[in-house]
């Protein structure tokens, strides 16, 4: 009797458990992997670090909001690769990260010279690639998988020159003499080229200083001495390597150079500048960038600052944040994590609202046949009281532009 009841208990228990043995939970949606190839070591590592902060923030937001809905809530996962401090290392990093596992799309690699190399790998392996780099040549090679969200360098040069000449006229200080000072990285070179070849001459401006170097710069005395003795009415400034730029700015203060400085890129608005040279050196220096927090983005900036402890948000995290969201939108539209399908979705995408356009002016993402964002317009950012603010276009400016003292 006792053994019978024991058998009964076992049978009942099995009856209860058995269904669970045959019913499997629905398979979890496979993660969608995004590559971020950016300099995480070497002289541009800070920019890579900032890019990663932006990517991490976007991924956390997307995953906490349910992931990719078209793929059953698939999560986005970031695979970062260190582009280091040379084109060779960047290319090798891209090769490694794109061949190790299935990557749906990629982002990178900050410095245009790196992006030129990395996008060749992405093109060969047919992985769609989003870049904030400026060099014109990135989207002049007929590549199908490269998408450039920033206005290209030559366009930035044209618009920056228009802006500074207009401002100078308003302030009764017409520009007659200009200087070009900076390194020979790709984005800077594409900015200087149209200035030298046609733009300055077309406005009757004489180029009186033209000093370009290969980073690192040994000493800035000779350059700044030339600026002091020739006193150009504007200096177009493209020193992407932080120590080089610090040397130049320290010398500008030491030699009391009064020429207004018009930077070329977002490298000139990182928080380290305030700590190293002080706000009194920086105030009124302005730079042309592809992206910077604009009017109405206070919440986004506040969230970024709380997350990272950074004193302000700049182009690099903002653009990468938007790039991750843009990839998410493309995956939703493609309903697939397949790189080719995502590429096709990116080629057709036309978005005018939401986080995917948050970094861009005007706020619309549509790519032309070359992979350039249609209508991309640069912003002018100016240091004021130790913080960089968007000052042009006025429609999205967070502060009015301050005139040069």
């Amino acid at each position, binding site marked *: 009797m006792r053994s019978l009841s024991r058998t009964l208990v076992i049978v009942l228990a099995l009856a209860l458990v058995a269904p669970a043995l045959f019913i499997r939970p629905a398979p979890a949606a496979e993660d969608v992997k995004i590559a971020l190839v950016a300099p995480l070591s070497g002289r541009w*590592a800070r920019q890579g670090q900032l890019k990663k902060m932006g990517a991490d923030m976007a991924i956390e937001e997307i995953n906490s909001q349910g992931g990719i809905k078209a793929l059953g809530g698939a999560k986005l996962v970031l695979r970062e690769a260190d582009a280091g401090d040379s084109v060779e290392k960047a290319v090798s990093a891209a090769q490694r990260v794109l061949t190790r596992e299935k990557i749906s799309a990629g982002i990178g690699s900050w410095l245009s010279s790196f992006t030129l190399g990395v996008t060749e790998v992405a093109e060969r392996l047919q992985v769609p690639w989003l870049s904030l780099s400026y060099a014109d040549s990135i989207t002049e090679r007929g590549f199908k998988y490269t998408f450039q969200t920033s206005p290209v360098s030559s366009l930035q040069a044209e618009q920056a020159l228009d802006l500074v000449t207009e401002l100078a006229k308003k302030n009764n200080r017409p520009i007659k003499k200009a200087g070009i000072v900076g390194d020979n990285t790709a984005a800077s070179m594409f900015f200087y080229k149209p200035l030298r070849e046609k733009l300055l001459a077309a406005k009757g401006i004489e180029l009186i200083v033209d000093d370009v170097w290969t980073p690192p710069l040994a000493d800035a*005395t*000779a350059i700044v001495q030339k600026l002091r003795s020739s006193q150009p009415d504007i200096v177009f400034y493209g020193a992407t390597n932080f120590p080089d730029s610090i040397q130049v700015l320290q010398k500008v203060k030491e030699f009391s150079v009064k020429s207004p400085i018009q930077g070329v890129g977002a490298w000139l608005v990182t928080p380290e500048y305030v*700590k190293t040279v002080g706000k009194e050196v920086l105030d009124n220096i302005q730079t042309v960038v592809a992206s910077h927090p604009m009017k109405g983005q206070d919440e986004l900036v506040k969230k970024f600052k709380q997350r990272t402890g950074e004193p302000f948000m700049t182009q690099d995290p903002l653009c990468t944040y938007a790039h991750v969201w843009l990839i998410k939108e493309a995956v939703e539209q493609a309903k697939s994590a397949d790189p080719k399908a995502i590429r096709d979705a990116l080629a057709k995408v036309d978005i005018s609202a939401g986080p995917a356009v948050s970094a861009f002016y005007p706020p619309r993402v549509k790519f032309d046949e070359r992979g350039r964002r249609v209508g991309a317009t640069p912003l002018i950012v100016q240091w004021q009281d130790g913080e960089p603010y968007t000052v042009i276009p006025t429609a999205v400016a967070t502060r009015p532009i301050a005139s040069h003292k």
Partner: protein
Amino acid sequence: MVLAEVVQYVATGLLVGGVYALMSIGLALIFGVMRVVNFAQGDFMMLGMYLTYFYAVSGGVDPLLGALLTIPPFFALGWIVHRSLLARVTGGGDPQRQMDAQLILTLGLSLVITNATTMILSPTPLGIRTDYATQAFALGPVLLNQARSYAFAMALVLAVAVYLFLTRTDLGKALRASADDPEAASYQGIDVRAMHGLAFGIGIALVAAAGGLLAAYHPIEPTVAGNFIVLMFVAVVLGGLGSIPGAFVGGIVIGLVQSLTLLVLPFQLQNTGVFIVFLLVLYLRPQGFFGRRTRAV
């Protein structure tokens, strides 16, 4: 080109060269005594910059004083690195194999230090803000940057101190004896291994002090060594391998050539002048400026 401008270029070159000179002395000492080519020399300089930074932010220590305060801890660090790592691949055995092992060891050490610093302290550049970094002494139309002038003066003092130590003290003489003939020195009761440790400690302390001086006006980041290590080697070879006065002169020459090159060549070719002079010296005087007479320290 007016004369004042040429004088400005010469003055700038001298000031820049002063710190190159101090950086190079340590490397020359290590090579002169131990015959070790230390690829990690620039990384110890970078660590010296960070220590000076921490002195400045935590204790408000001026970087010029901080540079001096890096000397004791870096001497100890150099001695420990020698004892724990370099001593295993120096001091006897097949010279070729030892040279290979030393190269691999110091190159590996360089990679480990750079990457560990990037991981621990982050790649974010740091800087010490000093008033004198952006101020100049005006000698008529010629401006001498104050930070570089102080750094030059301190580099000169430290170089003279090392020279006097090597030539006027018993310990210095023992060090030179170990460099000239380790076997004969050991017969005289000199502990050659200890002398190697001493040389490595001093060499590392000197380059860390140079880093401290550099930190007064140059941003600090884990990869900063890459900007200077090649110039250090060029200075040591120019001066004559292993020669302390040679390395000092080599450093000054590099600074001068870098600056004066800009009188005739565009900025992109700033270091081209240095390497042209380097090749010329190797061709005309392969032993370097001081190579023959003061090959050993």
